């Protein structure tokens, strides 16, 4: 394997690589690759057909170009679409059977799978490159009828549910990257919460890219049946390399009548070095359907990593009285770029949506909020509130707010507030005068700026996220 790993420095502590033998599909995007993936995952025929249908559609689609951050052309034929540790080809049944090297990797990342199982009370699905290597707490969840497993396992064991819901929120031919994902997706999580069940613990997935020249195509599907509740969190890291790696995920959420899904992301992919070399292209499609009445979907994202972050976790508010929320912190430093926001599509009556976006730019970075609020004719008495705040550090970074607002009936209201501020020298001086050094002062002020979003995160992760916010901005004020 070509080794292009860079030295690990203190800014990105997850930049190490695990030296492990892996099985890979041959390079290139073609039918054989797709058959290879489907075959190695022992998928039923309908799944392969679905993938091939997506691949056929892909041929007629073009990559979108309307986004603010531009990137060099990706050579899709020069990528590996499947890479998995050899030891996981037969999926281990219990944690004792997992390759110790992989366990060690997760321990180094702060996710000790074995201890996590015993101590934290958080169920984890761990995805390493293209496969899920472990899912903890499975038995306890099964007792309540909750399904939490890898999507690969779900395709085999719960194919009725997968068939019914996969692609029902993000259609096969939605757009280039979503369609690409549908053709070549490898692993991700599957969650099903049965009616009137409150999931007793946080569910989380930890995505790790390890192999070089490999794209990660995550696919996650979460279904909250009538009257159920689930809180789910995903975390992401990758080694430091001077090549750009593509992560193109599709995440679909479905909330039926009176159900609620809370989905939190702490994205810390490798952002590239100080000069903008390397880093992950995080091109992700996340969409939730509030299909039932009184349902609710809430997205919270803390985006600190990636060379380019390009995503709009969205809500389709179909059910009457359904609620969509989007809380976002996007931090860009050095040469990082972000074009992120949300879409709130109001279809049902009395639907409500709330958008709180906090963008922070430092160094030479560029940060765009782009959002759509679309209230349809039949979505009477609907409401949206949007607040977009940007914080600039230094003179070389940029912040942009691009709201699209459509209101097609006269009984609905839309509010939009936006502010742009520069981090205030006097505030820093005040903190310094009270004994705080520059880094502590920046961390304090920025965390204050992000507070409304940070407090949406589950307790266990809020502290981690606060630290991450501080680390991402290290060295940005001099």
């Amino acid at each position, binding site marked *: 394997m070509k080794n292009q790993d860079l030295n690990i420095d203190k800014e990105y502590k997850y930049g190490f690589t695990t030296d492990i033998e892996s099985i890979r599909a041959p390079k290139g995007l073609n039918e054989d690759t797709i058959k290879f993936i489907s075959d190695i995952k022992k998928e039923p025929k309908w799944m392969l057909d679905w993938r091939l249908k997506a691949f056929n559609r892909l041929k007629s689609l073009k990559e979108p170009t309307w986004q603010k951050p531009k990137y060099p052309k990706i050579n899709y034929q020069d990528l590996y679409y499947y890479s998995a540790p050899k030891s996981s080809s037969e999926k281990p049944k219990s944690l004792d059977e997992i390759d110790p090297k992989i366990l060690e990797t997760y321990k180094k990342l702060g996710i000790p799978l074995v201890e996590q199982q015993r101590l934290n009370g958080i169920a984890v699905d761990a995805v390493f490159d293209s496969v899920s290597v472990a899912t903890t707490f499975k038995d306890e969840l099964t007792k309540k009828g909750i399904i939490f497993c890898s999507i690969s396992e779900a395709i085999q064991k719960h194919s009725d549910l997968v068939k019914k819901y996969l692609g029902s929120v993000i259609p096969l031919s939605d757009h280039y990257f979503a369609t690409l994902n549908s053709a070549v997706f490898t692993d991700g999580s599957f969650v099903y919460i049965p009616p009137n069940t409150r999931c007793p613990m946080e569910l989380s997935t930890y995505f790790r890219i390890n192999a070089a020249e490999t794209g990660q195509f995550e696919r996650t599907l979460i279904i909250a049946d009538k009257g159920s509740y689930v809180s789910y969190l995903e975390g992401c890291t990758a080694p430091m390399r001077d090549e750009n790696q593509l992560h193109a995920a599709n995440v679909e959420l479905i909330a039926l009548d009176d159900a609620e899904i809370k989905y939190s992301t702490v994205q810390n992919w490798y952002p590239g070095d100080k000069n903008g070399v390397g880093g992950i292209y995080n091109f992700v499609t996340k969409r939730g359907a509030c299909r039932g009445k009184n349902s609710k979907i809430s997205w919270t994202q803390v985006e600190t990593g990636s060379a380019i972050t390009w995503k709009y976790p969205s809500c389709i508010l179909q059910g009457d009285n359904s609620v969509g929320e989007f809380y976002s912190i996007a931090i860009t430093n050095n040469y990082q770029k972000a074009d992120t926001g949300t879409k709130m599509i109001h279809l049902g009556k009395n639907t409500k949506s709330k958008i709180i976006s906090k963008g922070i730019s430092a160094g030479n970075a560029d940060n765009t909020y782009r959002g759509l609020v679309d209230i349809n004719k039949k979505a009477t008495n609907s409401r949206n509130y949007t607040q977009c705040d940007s914080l600039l550090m230094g003179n070389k970074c940029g912040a942009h707010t691009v709201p699209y607002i459509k209101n097609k009936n006269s009984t609905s209201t839309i509010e939009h507030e936006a502010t742009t501020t520069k981090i*205030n*020298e*006097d*505030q820093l*001086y*005040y*903190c*310094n*005068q*009270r*004994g*705080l*050094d*520059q880094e*502590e002062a920046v961390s*304090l*002020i920025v*965390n*204050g*700026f*992000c*507070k*409304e979003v940070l407090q949406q995160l589950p307790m266990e992760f809020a502290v981690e996220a606060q630290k991450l916010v501080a680390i991402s901005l290290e060295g940005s004020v001099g």
Partner: protein
Amino acid sequence: MLKITNLKATINEKLILKGLDLDIKPGEVHAIMGPNGSGKSTLANVLSGKNGYEIEGEISFNGMDLNELKTEERAQKGIFLAFQYPLEIPGVNTNIFLKTSLNSVRKARGEKELDTLTFLKLIKEKAKELNIDEKFLSRQLNVGFSGGEKKKNEILQMKLLEPKLSILDETDSGLDIDALRIVADGVNSYKNKENAFLIITHYQRLLDYIKPDFIHVLSAGKIVKTGSADLGEQLEKTGYANLS
């Protein structure tokens, strides 16, 4: 404690302090009075280490060369500035700010950092002494505070951090009589043989409550007159214009 020799300070190519000398010993209270634009706030900024000034001359603080120390190091070594206009920091809980601040100072002093419970107990006591409602402590730092509340919050921080030299920059401006008395009581209760005060003010009013050992008159970047507490009353009658 503090010895300033021939201090010159320039900002944006403008010379503000033009050769200032000052000697403060432990236990002393010094007041600096003077007309607008005489360099009073500049002196406070220079001593606390605000960026942007070009400095000439010597400032020695307990044997250390202050010019060598960063703003936060000066704070950690015991220099406190009560701001004329305390800054608002949205989203930051006052208690968390105070705890972070106290612990960085304690750490620098080689003392143990306080855990949340011990801190809360301490801050409640200190707040009570200054007649500050506990509710203020859980609000965002200085956000929506009245002028008087902000100034009281500065004195609370002073008492919490226990500095050696406290510089009060026009702490009396914008205070009503009651608040002025509380602030003055706060200062007086902290005054002892070990620490010193440098009080910058326009008016005699604050000095009726906090009796200074020396009053200096600053004019056009230099101390033009030094006297005892009586000088303040005299100035109140005659104004600065008659000084040369």
